[in-house]
């Protein structure tokens, strides 16, 4: 081989481009990476971080949206919500009841459906579709149908119950039953999503584990308790976190089914924030409530993550 060695000016970590000799390759790669992720970062800053920071700022003001009068009040909105406003604690309690009712019920039902529908058998796709369909059904249509079914004496559900000798309550007008009704109808609507997540997780568990356990004489329950359930742990954590967050953020379902009634029995945090901000136009107070809700959901998520870490 004669002539110059075949070295490229662009090779090596410190190679420089002819067009921009002051840039190292490392710098160039870093710049390219930032350019590629910049749309996402811009979206994050504009649509998430920006509003979040703005809400923190708003929460320190008394701001009437209509008159546009803004007064800095410091932490007064937080103090009022947490220590002076009895409605807030009533609403927070309702949100907690909703979450405590919905999350375990949703997860148990989703797991049971997934265990039944994770294996292949004729018609399994149809069953999965049937249980998933409510997830993609419009919330408004869902609410209209259920409000019709859950009428008092004339409702389909109560007529069915009457057929077996049970006098059903006036589901959506009885303060003792309205929360039950909204939880159950929400579970039926959303369970399909968690079912799909569980099915995916179940199908990822190697069959060998179950086969080996069966060779050792393990029962179905023992296989579930010792193999399936522990291996579903990460998925269960994800499902628990997203279902808990979703249950605290529930708004449309309550708005459409009960409007927070009867007797404020189903008035939950997200709906209360909506009332304060969009009906009474108290933007500052609504922002403070939103920050409190954010803190509650964040705390619950962290607790769940810590508990999971402790388990493993």
């Amino acid at each position: 081989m004669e002539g110059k060695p075949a070295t490229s000016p662009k090779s090596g970590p410190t190679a420089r481009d002819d067009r921009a000799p002051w840039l190292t390759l490392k710098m160039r790669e870093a710049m390219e990476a930032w350019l590629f992720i910049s749309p996402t970062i811009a979206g994050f800053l504009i649509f998430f971080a920006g509003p979040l920071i703005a809400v923190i700022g708003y929460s320190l003001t008394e701001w009437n949206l209509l008159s546009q009068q803004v007064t800095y009040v410091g932490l007064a909105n937080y103090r009022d919500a947490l220590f002076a406003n009895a409605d807030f604690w009533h609403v927070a309690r309702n949100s907690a009841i909703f979450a405590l009712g919905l999350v375990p019920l949703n997860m148990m039902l989703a797991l049971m459906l997934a265990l039944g529908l994770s294996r292949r058998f004729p018609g399994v796709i149809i069953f999965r579709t049937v249980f998933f369909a409510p997830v993609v059904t419009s919330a408004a249509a869902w609410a209209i149908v259920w409000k019709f079914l859950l009428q008092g004496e004339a409702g389909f559900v109560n007529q069915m119950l009457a057929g077996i000798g049970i006098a059903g309550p006036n589901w959506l007008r009885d303060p003792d039953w309205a929360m039950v009704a909204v939880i159950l109808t929400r579970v039926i609507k959303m369970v399909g999503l968690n079912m799909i997540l569980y099915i995916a997780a179940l199908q990822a568990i190697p069959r060998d584990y179950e086969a080996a356990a069966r060779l050792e004489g393990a029962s179905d329950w023992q296989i579930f308790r010792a193999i399936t359930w522990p291996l579903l742990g990460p998925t269960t954590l994800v499902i628990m976190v997203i279902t808990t967050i979703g249950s605290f953020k529930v708004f449309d379902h309550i708005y459409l089914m009960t409007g927070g009634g009867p007797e404020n029995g189903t008035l939950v945090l997200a709906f209360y924030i909506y009332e304060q901000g969009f009906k009474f136009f108290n933007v500052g107070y609504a922002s403070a409530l939103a920050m409190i809700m954010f803190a509650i959901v964040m705390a619950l998520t962290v607790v769940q993550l810590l508990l999971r870490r402790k388990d493993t």
Partner: protein
Amino acid sequence: MKGIRKVLTASVLAATLASPALAAELRFTIWTGNEAHLKMLNGYAESFRARRPDVTVKFETIPPADYTQKLTFQIAGGNPPDAGWLMEDAAPTFAKAGVLEDLAPALNAAKDYDFADFSKPALGLWVNGGKVIGVPFSTSPFVIFFNKDMFDKAGLEDPLVLAAKGQWTMATFQDVAKKLTAANGKPGFEFKDGQGYDSRIMHALMPPIRAYGGDVWADRKCGLDTPQAVASVRQLHDMVFKDKSIVAPGEKGDYFSGNSAMTINQISRASLMPKAGFKWGIAPLPTGPGGDSPVIGQAGIVVFAAGKQKPLAAEFVAHVTNKQNVAIAAQFFPPARNSVLASDAFINSNNLIPPAQMKIVGDAIARGKVLPAHEKSPQLLAAMKPRVDALWRADANVESALKAVCAAIQPLL
């Protein structure tokens, strides 16, 4: 020659550039999408162009359920319409916030406007200390819609006949509703749009309370715990739970599809009747111990103080609410102008409602009282709702429940 050409060119250029600057477009928000309503409104815009050839008006429809909210966001977002409709319950809130322009100068300046022609009671919400914050365009009394076929089946005289005999009272109303329920197997009465327990609490409670001589609130004092209010609501409670003659909470009725014999509503709902498939009529509200007390729902036209073309918008409002244009609107929106109310044109304006029954509407406007409104209306209704929910239990103590409502709303009044 060259100089003249330059001057001419400059003049043409200046004229061309100047014309768009003179042209103006007014934004006007409304909550109707009805084609006939839009045709009428666009007609107003056309006739306004006769005086202001360079002005166009763009009507923007916002659904009624979101109307006040979206309007507020437009104002807060710095993009207010120039003018628009405003519901009665929002008027005091908007006025208190100072977002409505005083229309008095424009109305006084308008030729042949005759502001004194407006019925004084109808202006209660819109005139404050010499300022005119809006002009009512719809002053619509509540009337009883009845299903004549159901009355005939029950062998009962209908409310029109009873009213003519002076027997259309709250007691008769209860009796008739009970008999209709028994004869037809469907409730005798349904609250307005089936929403009397939810978004139409005021429309459910106000007519009987006023018939008994009470009020929900007056002079910043809650009136729901007065003997008149308690007696009237107790009657409603009995009708719901003892007689089962009013569509119960949580049940579906719907007068307009023949599932209740009577309902309370405004004449704009007459547009649903041609498809109803039964004989029907409208009658005045039943009278009570407090006498004859028609209840009126209202909406006005306002100009927004933050608008960019306030004088022009106010001029357009004066145009829309002059005698001639109010007479045109009377076919859809009962007027507040006495001269139009008294005219044959109004009595004959609605092709669905016979003149004799339209006279009931006219009488009710002349003698009625507008629904109560307050600058904290949304908060008041939110505070009332859970306590009124407690009222609609079969075993509720009506007096205690109403006292609880007063305890909740008095601090806001």
